[in-house]
């Protein structure tokens, strides 16, 4: 259980420090230890208290969970979801073998079907966070194929299809009791809350402090559930957007030079945010204004 991990770290620190004054100092240091479970609970309570009328699972609908008018517009297009073409294309791509005869399914558990809710995960062999997009390109490269751009339509189609096969399944992100995983999680939290760009915004500026408010006419989404509908068809983009594309765009919008797609920090923040959405249903691919 995760809560006992924080206690385990504290106990370990006490044991190492020995009894007496050193133990008190160690306890204080341990209080600074990374506690994803406590963070998770605080995060969840913040949004459910701030928006008591929003059913928990509805947070995955982002701005539509915040604004009734916007929701009506969204429901009006739901009969002909704009991402359907991406699912169809992704399904076809997924089934098409590589030049060497292998398929995407050979790289993934369950042949890649119905597994999206487990990403990102911490890979203890390589000591890094693996996102779905990264895993797909590594699969391609391992099978002699050139990687796809993380911000373009091929990656969006593949992830749209894989998300679709997991629709409705609760996110189930694991943070193992491994200092490297905890550090990656913490770096993700730091990335999320740190101000950046000439405009001095953090992700939290909009998505923690101002969910439901609007900048010009755009309604801001809550951070809870914000990755659940990825990849999204964005009307503003007239096309699909991957997780990578969204992070790059957000950086530019605050006048920060974006990192390379799938940079370690981008994967860490995706890890953090998806963990915070644990239990909420995969709802991708999604549509946004």
């Amino acid at each position, binding site marked *: 259980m995760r809560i006992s991990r924080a206690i385990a770290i504290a106990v370990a620190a006490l044991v190492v420090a020995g009894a007496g004054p050193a133990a008190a100092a160690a306890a204080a240091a341990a209080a600074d230890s990374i506690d994803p479970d406590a963070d998770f609970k605080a995060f969840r309570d913040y949004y459910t208290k701030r928006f008591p009328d929003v059913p928990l699972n509805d947070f995955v609908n982002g701005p539509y969970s915040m604004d009734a008018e916007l929701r009506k517009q969204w429901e009006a297009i739901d009969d002909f979801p704009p991402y359907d073409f991406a699912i169809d294309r992704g399904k076809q791509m997924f089934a098409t073998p590589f030049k060497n005869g292998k398929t995407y399914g050979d790289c993934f558990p369950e042949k890649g079907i119905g597994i999206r809710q487990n990403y990102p995960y911490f890979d203890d062999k390589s000591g890094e966070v693996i996102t779905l997009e990264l895993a797909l390109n590594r699969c391609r490269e391992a099978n002699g194929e050139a990687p796809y751009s993380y911000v373009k339509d091929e990656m969006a189609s593949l992830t749209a299809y894989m998300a679709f096969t997991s629709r409705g399944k609760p996110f189930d992100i694991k943070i193992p009791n491994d200092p490297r995983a905890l550090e990656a999680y913490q770096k993700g939290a730091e990335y999320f809350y740190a101000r950046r760009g*000439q405009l001095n915004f953090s992700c939290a500026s909009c998505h923690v*402090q101002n969910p439901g408010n*609007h*900048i010009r006419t*755009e309604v801001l989404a809550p951070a809870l559930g914000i990755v659940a509908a990825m990849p999204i068809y964005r009307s503003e983009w007239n096309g699909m957007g991957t997780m990578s594309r969204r992070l790059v765009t957000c950086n530019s919008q605050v006048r920060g030079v974006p990192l390379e797609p799938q940079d370690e920090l981008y994967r860490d923040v995706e890890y953090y945010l998806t963990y915070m959405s644990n239990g909420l249903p995969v709802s991708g691919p999604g549509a946004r204004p």
Partner: protein
Amino acid sequence: MRGGRRTAHGTALFVAPVLAAVAFAGAASAQAPALPGQALAFDRSKGNCLTCHDIKGGDAPGNVGPPLADMKSRFPDRKELTAIVFDETKRNPQTVMPPFGRNLILTDGEIEAIVDFLYTR
């Protein structure tokens, strides 16, 4: 006497058009072209104030920040309003308002112009 009256009339004849011109100018300034600060405030690449603030004269404002109205009575001290635009994090470390001065988004001159404009709202 006559001269005096003529002088008085003369003065009136001189003054009247001047008064009229002043009155005309006064009336015209009510519909005068926007202050340079308004253009800066509404420009997305400059102040971009409407993104977060409702300001009279602007369309489709956001509501992240409070409406900017009644500015003369709310900010009698110009230095205070200027400081807010320059760097609101000094007053409120958790603010989402960009520090337009500290982060070199706007020049001192541009901030002055925007503050001038805000005092007309």
